């Protein structure tokens, strides 16, 4: 049996697809251009703008910094966010309703305001080193995503499963790791990926927290484009995409495998 599809629906689907994929095609195309200016479609094919990234020391440094900050802040946000989401779902009735709102509050504040106030308080007031204030800022930035995503996967979790494990002799903390975590694995992976992407692409908070000698990749890119209009901006974008996809694949693989091995 075939189902007839309205031509307008097909047209609409194609439009949405172009809207989603189009920018990616343009960025990848521009990055591969042999010209010394940003253009699309690419004129001549070359990888020289990718080589260019690694020739500039500032780019090399900031790629490492960005990866470190993204891993650290995502890791810290998971360590804080998973127990927080757990507690808010497990003890929903006992806890006040505003508590879950508290954890998504940073999303409601414009990121520029968040970045500026962090600069005034953390970096200036307490003279916290740049690197650490970057980690603090990014942790704050990604925490709401972690709490939201983990909460969503815990919403369907039947906590009597946990009680069953405890009644069979498994101590509560052990139960958390052997029973609860494996069952919200996909939520943890999703939270990790979302948080990592948010951190590695962030401009508005990093722009306040970076300082002499320490910068992140997007900030370095911003500085670069102020002086040069070459396809480096496109090649860095492609590099960021590749890095993100690679991290996603690795996380999916390793987290998936360790949990399955239990």
């Amino acid at each position: 049996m075939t189902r007839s599809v309205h031509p307008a629906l097909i047209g609409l689907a194609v439009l949405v697809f172009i809207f989603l994929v189009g920018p990616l095609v343009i960025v990848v195309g521009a990055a591969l251009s042999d010209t010394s200016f940003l253009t699309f479609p690419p004129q001549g094919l070359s990888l020289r703008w990718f080589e260019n990234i690694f020739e500039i020391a500032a780019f090399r440094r900031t790629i490492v910094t960005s990866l470190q900050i993204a891993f650290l802040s995502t890791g810290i946000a998971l360590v804080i966010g998973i127990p927080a989401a757990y507690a808010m779902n497990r003890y929903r009735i006992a806890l006040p309703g505003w508590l879950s709102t508290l954890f998504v509050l940073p999303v409601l504040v414009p990121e520029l305001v968040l970045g500026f106030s962090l600069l005034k308080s953390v970096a200036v007031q307490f003279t916290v080193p740049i690197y650490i204030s970057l980690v603090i800022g990014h942790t704050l930035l990604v925490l709401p995503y972690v709490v939201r995503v983990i909460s969503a996967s815990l919403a369907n979790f039947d906590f009597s499963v946990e009680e069953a494990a405890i009644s069979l002799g498994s101590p509560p903390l052990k139960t958390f790791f052997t029973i609860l975590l494996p069952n919200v694995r996909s939520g943890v992976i999703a939270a990790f990926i979302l948080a990592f992407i948010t951190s590695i692409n962030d401009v508005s908070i990093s722009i306040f927290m970076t300082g002499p000698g320490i910068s992140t990749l997007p900030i370095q890119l911003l500085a670069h484009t102020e002086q040069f209009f070459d396809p480096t901006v496109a090649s860095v974008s492609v590099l960021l995409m590749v890095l993100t996809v690679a991290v996603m694949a690795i996380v999916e693989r390793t987290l998936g495998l360790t949990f399955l091995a239990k």
Partner: protein
Amino acid sequence: MTQRLTIENITAHYGTTKVLEDLSLDIAEGELVSLLGASGCGKTTTLRLVAGFLAPTSGAITLGGKDLTRLPAHKRDIGLVFQNYALFPHLSVADNVGFGLKQRGIARDTRAKRVGAMLERVGLSHLADRLPGALSGGQKQRVALARALVIEPPLLMFDEPLSNLDAKLRIDMRVEIRQLQRANGTTSVYVTHDQEEAFSISDRVAIMHQGRIMQLDTPEVLYQRPANAFVARFVGFENLIPMTVVARDGETATVEAEGGVRLSLSSGHFGAIPDRFILASRADGLAVSDETNDGIPATLGLRTYLGRAYQYQCETPAGHLLANGPLGRPLDPGATAKLVPVPEQCTILAPEA
């Protein structure tokens, strides 16, 4: 192996709300006692207190002479079966059943042997490698049962284990639960709101209401001789008629109900008749007759056919009553008749406060 459970003067609160009041319960070795009542009566709270998921405000819980009151839940060694099965979704049937043995540090091959034997007993050997998501409700509850039994706990507790199953399976499973419990001789607490379920599988049943046990006895006694008006209504006594003795003459007492209805009752069947009491019965405790003068005058309403008798909705000066009449003599709505108490089917209760 199997042990006596003693709950002494337990009081429990949720926040400032008192949910159990001075509750005591003694369950003998190998006995199955049901906690029966509507939701909110405290039956699940009692189970969770014994399991260690809640702490009592005061009182003590002991199992085989060991004080459980302050012991953490994972050290209590109690087998639990939950209403929603609570199987570990990421573990196979065999790993679910073996989970408790693993916690006890039992070696892998011994564990596999015991799990295999247990799965055989509940008839699930062929599903050992499946994940719980691929099982039917009945199979899930068998896995849950096997998981609780395999650790050979001194106490088994069931929290509405059959509520999520369909009617036919419910009856099969309760027989199966009772057989396994009997075979192991494990002391058991069974929480349910289903009276038929509780009565059919229990040695004794505790009928609970507002955090208290209203009556604790064998199903036979509860069904025939409820101790108070609450339990009487609960086990289906439709007619509760408050009475006052107005005259006594030897064995016979003349009693008066609301609306000036007078009856004479012989204390021979009831023992002593107090000055004020409630005459309680099911519909078959009041016989409809249009051939006698002694009885409660009634105007008959709707007649329904029960197979063994006709049942009538009756309006009387003492209120709305249900009574049964003989099959040979169907009476039409609107007819007047007398309702005569059948002493063997009636019981006398203390008046309600």
